């Protein structure tokens, strides 16, 4: 896909100076509405111009039935032409000025964007603060072969810097360039991720064609077929409950009457179905076309049915991993993998970089996990996924927890491995959470009045904001103290081993950790 217009020379200039965005960007930034209005106005004007040159169809009174006088002006051919020229000139002029005033550059360890004519804005993001760089392609931009580059920094979505728009190839170039620069800053921060040390994960590879291949360093890992995603999205508690309700109604009332009843009840069902439908469709839109690949120190995620996004998740920013399986996915053996990433906030509109596998077979889930540093043969991991309680090495809940959690109390528990804490929960929706000891932010205990009566305490490993919740509910009181002691002790050891970040203490040797889950452990 190439830009319909050749990129202006300014945007091909080297990095020492300011570069411009694509000339069509002001129009695209205006969005669909502006374009629609503009298209309508222009087509009306063009119509009336042509009509006015056609003497047979030109009837002065023809446009009179359009109540407002605006179009009456265009009844005269010269006026119509003039209006057309003025509209195009104004829009073009405003766009041109806006385009002239929007410039960006990458220099001096910073990404800078200047924009605005009246209200000038100058945003700078230091490269070492860059958390991720992604390219996104809203549907209009996709039609024109343009992309936007979103530079994400810690501090929420309002601290993002968006370069909208660039030609698709140029955007990939800028993204790669920024990532390279930011990655260099990262490598200074995390010396154990020096490129030479990256060992290829041993997991099985799913060799599938992916559009990320055009980047040289990306090795595709998993691609999710849209058909499976569709089935998995439909297999959701809410839709199944709805289906069962309809079925039950049909069985009890009788088939013939059910049709009428359903028809009568349809208006009431509309909002429910719409609500369900919207959430399902949104999930489908966000996770469609999903593919994940591996570069040296990061995972490349591509997803989006209409808005195709390319996101990068640096491995050393992953704070916690969760593998979950709703009950409905169990017959198919499907899993979802989610992560907490430092600097990516769960409150953002789409959960883009927190889902590393929307739905995959266990082999695919293991592929993603091994890219994150887990060992697919690890018995603790397998027990975390499939165990039902009572395995050696796992600390479960006391029988008193049965009163508060009758279904899952046997399965819920935690286990300590060399580098990570494993937590498993849920009998129906199975969840397994992995938090490397070096990623534990802090520990917390909570006890409500009911728990106090039963002598239970919930323990939580606090991670950075994200979808993954690493808490063990309803441990017994002594067990919770042990949890605090043991997990805290492991975290303390891990922090000591990792030591201060090298950018704060450059002399840190950053001795490589044991090879096991090294990419997950900072």
């Amino acid at each position: 896909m190439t830009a319909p217009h050749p990129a202006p020379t300014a945007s091909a200039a080297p990095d020492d100076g300011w570069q411009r965005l694509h000339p069509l960007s002001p129009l695209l930034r205006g969005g669909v509405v502006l374009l629609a209005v503009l298209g309508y106005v222009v087509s009306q004007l063009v119509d009336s111009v042509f009509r006015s040159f056609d003497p047979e169809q030109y009837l002065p009174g023809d446009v009179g039935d359009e109540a407002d006088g605006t179009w009456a002006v265009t009844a005269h051919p010269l006026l119509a032409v003039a209006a057309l020229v003025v509209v195009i000139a104004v829009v073009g002029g405003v766009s041109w000025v806006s385009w002239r005033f929007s410039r960006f550059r990458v220099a001096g360890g910073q990404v800078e964007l200047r924009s605005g004519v009246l209200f000038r804005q100058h945003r700078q993001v230091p490269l070492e603060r860059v958390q991720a760089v992604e390219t996104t392609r809203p549907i209009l931009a996709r039609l024109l072969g343009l992309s936007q580059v979103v530079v994400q920094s810690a501090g929420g979505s309002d601290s993002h810097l968006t370069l909208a728009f660039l030609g698709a190839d140029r955007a990939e170039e800028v993204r790669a360039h920024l990532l390279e620069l930011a990655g260099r800053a990262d490598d200074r921060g995390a010396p154990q991720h020096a490129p030479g040390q990256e060992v290829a994960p041993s997991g099985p590879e799913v060799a599938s064609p992916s559009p990320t291949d055009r980047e040289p360093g990306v090795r595709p890992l998993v691609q999710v077929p849209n058909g499976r995603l569709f089935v998995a999205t439909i297999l959701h508690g809410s839709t199944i409950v709805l289906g069962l309700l309809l079925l039950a109604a049909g069985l009890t009332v009788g088939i013939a009457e059910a049709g009428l009843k359903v028809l009568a009840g349809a208006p009431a069902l509309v909002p429910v179905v719409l609500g369900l439908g919207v959430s399902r469709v949104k999930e489908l839109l966000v996770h469609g076309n999903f593919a994940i690949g591996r570069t040296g120190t990061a995972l490349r995620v591509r997803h989006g049915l209409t808005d195709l996004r390319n996101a990068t998740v640096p491995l050393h920013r992953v704070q916690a991993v969760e593998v979950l399986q709703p009950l409905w996915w169990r017959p198919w053996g499907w899993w979802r993998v989610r992560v907490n990433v430092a600097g990516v906030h769960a409150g953002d509109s789409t959960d883009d970089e927190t889902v590393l596998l929307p739905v995959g077979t266990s082999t695919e889930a293991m592929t993603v996990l091994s890219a994150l540093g887990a060992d697919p043969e690890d018995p603790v991991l397998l027990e975390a996924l499939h165990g039902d309680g009572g395995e050696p090495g796992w600390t479960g809940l006391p029988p008193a927890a049965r009163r508060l959690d009758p279904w899952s109390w046997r399965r819920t528990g935690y286990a300590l491995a060399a580098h990570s804490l494993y937590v498993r929960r849920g009998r129906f929706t199975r969840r397994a959470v992995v938090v490397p000891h070096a990623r534990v932010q802090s520990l917390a205990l909570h006890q409500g009045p009911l728990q106090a009566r039963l002598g239970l305490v919930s323990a939580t490993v606090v991670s950075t904001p994200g979808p993954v919740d690493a808490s063990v509910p309803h441990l017994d009181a002594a067990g919770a103290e042990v949890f605090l002691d043991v997990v805290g002790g492991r975290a303390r050891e891990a922090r000591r081993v990792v030591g201060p970040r090298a950018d704060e203490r450059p002399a840190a040797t950053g001795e490589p950790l044991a090879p096991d889950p090294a990419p997950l452990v900072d």
Partner: protein
Amino acid sequence: MTDPAPPSPPDPSPTRTDTTTLGVTLRGGDLGWRPVAPALATVRLIVLGAVLVVPLLATVVVALLVTGWVWLGTAALVVAGLWGLWVIRRQVSAISWVELDEEIVIRKGRLFRSLVSVPYGRLQYVDIQSGPLARAFGIASCEIHTASPESGGSLPGLPTAEAEALRGRLAARGEAQRAGL
């Protein structure tokens, strides 16, 4: 996987009951837990009183002028105030904290007990806040922020000088033990 890595604590299985290093419990213990200033209770009581006094006066006026039934509302407000007094005293006396070698531990609550243990190495920054009322009583609250908004602990009701000193100590230890993100 349960075999310990070289730098791990000696006992890999989390079954030991002698809490050698910490002994941190939800119910306190002999670690030298430090209470917060009793002035915090006074401040909170003043706030509670300020909130309750307007509806209380309103009910009294209405009861005197319109109907005696509104005395019930007055009684309810008085009961609520007394209950608040009891709760505030208990809550404030339940807040305690202790600085360990590598963590600061804050304990709160009676009915809903909670405990948060924040390693110094994870501190991002420390805020000290005090409103006008708190300043009048010479106390300030110390908010501890980590990379996760939910994990930070807040320690209300420290004497201002002590809050400043605590911030200094936390900053120094955080610098010494910093562990990145």
